[in-house]
């Protein structure tokens, strides 16, 4: 009975794991990078100084208010992100359909740093939860893949249950190649199971409504004409001029017990000051509201029902905006492990079938797709970092140029993988992709250095860390490419 169950679970784990794993790998990788989305944005906007952290001044807030009003006149729904320990500048942001973009101001003088336009870390954040496909079908697809991940994890547990405890830290990298890959898959899956399980569960729960809406898909439309609403990130009409923001923010912070990093949203009637996301693991939307006309206090919303509080905790744990730096690094490493789990799973799937189905066209297509996600995605990601340094700073439509370059690179490597795999040169395709990855990663620090885009004294640790990680990924790719040249033992 148990063996039959294991066999069935093995089939489910293999096929569902492979088909979902192709996209899950990209979701894991982009989610891993999104842990440091703010820091990536800092790397990509070297014009913004990071060394000063000053308290907000009324002059800076007045400049921000003028920027908000100007943006609203253009029809954008604009908000302020106040300086915090993690992001020590005043940002005036609006949603462009994918990312939050806008100028960064000095919290002391209110002058704009005029940073280059960039997709920044927001790109990876958006890609992680929607694959840049919007709510429909992007978020729906990612949520469905989250469900698939939960099923794959469950079936994997059933298969490995017997050896789970004795083989907890068993790794045989010096054994036969298939053995080493299976061990790597198991080590990543078992040791990081708590993290992967809770991220899969919370990630799926956050957007579960897009798969299981509270209303029926076929419910009749409510009586009366539909309510007129603006598209996401846009305004139907701009509100009256803003009152002085400094006293409102002081009051709001006192009421919310949230000293920095707050968001300030503007409606036609209200100015809403939100509690910082970094205040704790509960991602609350507590806010204090003030009248937009004269700035008098209207109300504060600071209590939540148990159901809402549960969802706030689920969101808070998944987004990890509360997390101190050490914990964020643990999230990052765990994300890398999840990516390695998906990657090794795909490789094991192919290894297992190469002897019996290696000549099959579907197998070769599967190998090309595997190559596209395991090596193509990191190459395209590094390409985005290259584009940030190589494209002219004043280029119009710079954000889309970076993103287009990312997808163009990814498509080119997908075509290259497909051509070589279909012509039975898969090994060459793996090697060539890995050498390209080694080149892209290894040369990024040099490109950063030669671009001269930032003084190394200001926020040096951030630039060094990003460059070092890129270099390390290049080194690993080079090692893998050299290893592939040797015959399998």
């Amino acid at each position: 009975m148990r063996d039959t169950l294991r066999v069935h679970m093995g089939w489910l784990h293999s096929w569902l794991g492979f088909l979902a794993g192709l996209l899950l790998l990209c979701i894991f990788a982009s989610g891993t990078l999104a842990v440091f989305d703010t820091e990536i944005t800092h790397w990509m906007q070297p014009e913004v100084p990071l060394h000063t952290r000053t308290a907000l001044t009324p002059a800076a807030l007045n400049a921000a208010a003028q920027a908000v009003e100007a943006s609203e006149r253009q029809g954008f729904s604009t908000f302020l992100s106040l300086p915090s320990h993690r992001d020590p500048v005043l940002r005036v942001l609006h949603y462009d359909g994918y990312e939050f973009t806008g100028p960064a101001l000095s919290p002391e003088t209110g002058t704009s740093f005029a940073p280059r336009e960039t997709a920044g870390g927001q790109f990876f954040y958006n890609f992680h939860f929607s694959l840049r496909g919007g709510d429909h079908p992007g978020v729906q697809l990612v949520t469905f893949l989250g469900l698939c991940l939960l099923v794959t994890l469950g079936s994997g547990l059933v298969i490995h249950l017997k050896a789970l405890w004795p083989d907890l830290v068993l790794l045989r990298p010096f054994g036969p190649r298939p053995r080493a890959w299976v061990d790597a898959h198991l080590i990543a899956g078992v040791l990081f199971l708590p993290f992967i399980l809770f991220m899969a569960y919370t990630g799926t729960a956050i957007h579960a409504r897009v798969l299981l809406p509270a209303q029926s898909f076929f419910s009749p439309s409510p009586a009366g004409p539909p309510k007129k609403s603006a598209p996401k990130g846009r305004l139907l009409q701009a509100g009256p001029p803003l009152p002085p923001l400094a006293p409102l923010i002081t009051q709001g912070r006192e009421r919310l017990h949230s000293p920095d990093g707050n968001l300030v949203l503007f409606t036609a009637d209200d100015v809403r000051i939100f509690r910082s996301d970094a205040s704790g693991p509960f991602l609350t939307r507590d806010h204090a509201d003030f009248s937009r006309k004269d700035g008098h206090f209207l109300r504060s919303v600071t209590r939540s029902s148990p159901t809402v509080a549960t969802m706030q905790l689920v969101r808070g744990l998944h987004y990890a905006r509360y997390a101190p730096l050490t914990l964020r690094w643990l999230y990052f490493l765990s994300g890398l492990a999840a990516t390695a789990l998906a990657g090794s799973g795909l490789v094991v799937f192919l290894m297992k079938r190469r002897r019996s189905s290696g000549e099959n066209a579907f197998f070769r297509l599967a190998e090309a797709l595997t190559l596209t996600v395991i090596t193509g995605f990191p190459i395209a990601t590094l390409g985005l970092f290259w584009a940030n340094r190589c494209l002219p700073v004043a280029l119009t439509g710079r954000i889309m140029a970076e993103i287009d370059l990312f997808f163009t690179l990814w498509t080119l490597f997908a075509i290259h993988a497909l051509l070589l795999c279909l012509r039975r040169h898969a090994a060459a395709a793996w090697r060539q992709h890995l050498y390209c990855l080694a080149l892209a990663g290894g040369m990024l620090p040099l490109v950063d250095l030669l671009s001269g885009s930032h003084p190394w004294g200001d926020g040096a640790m951030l630039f060094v860390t990003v460059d070092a990680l890129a270099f390390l990924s290049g080194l690993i790719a080079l090692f893998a490419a050299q290893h592939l040249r040797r015959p399998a033992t």
Partner: protein
Amino acid sequence: MILLLACVLWCVAFRCHEWLQSRNRTTFPMPVRAVWLNQGVRALAPCLALALCLMHSPALGVLFWLGLGSVCGVCTSVLMAVLKNKRGRAPAGKPPL
């Protein structure tokens, strides 16, 4: 410093766990008393690591504990693999596929 200590405890626990497996008895032979000691350390070290993590951060201690445990598990498995390889007795096992 507290987190570093928690890391050491996790690594020690995983090392004891691996040494206690029957497949390693030939590579790392040990007397009965050492087996008991290893079993004790394997049970106590993670508990102590949890206590340290909760001391470090009462609200986020469990997350630190789990995260450090995972990372230390990988580090220990790599170290053990290198150690076994150096002794020339790595249990290669039969290819799984």
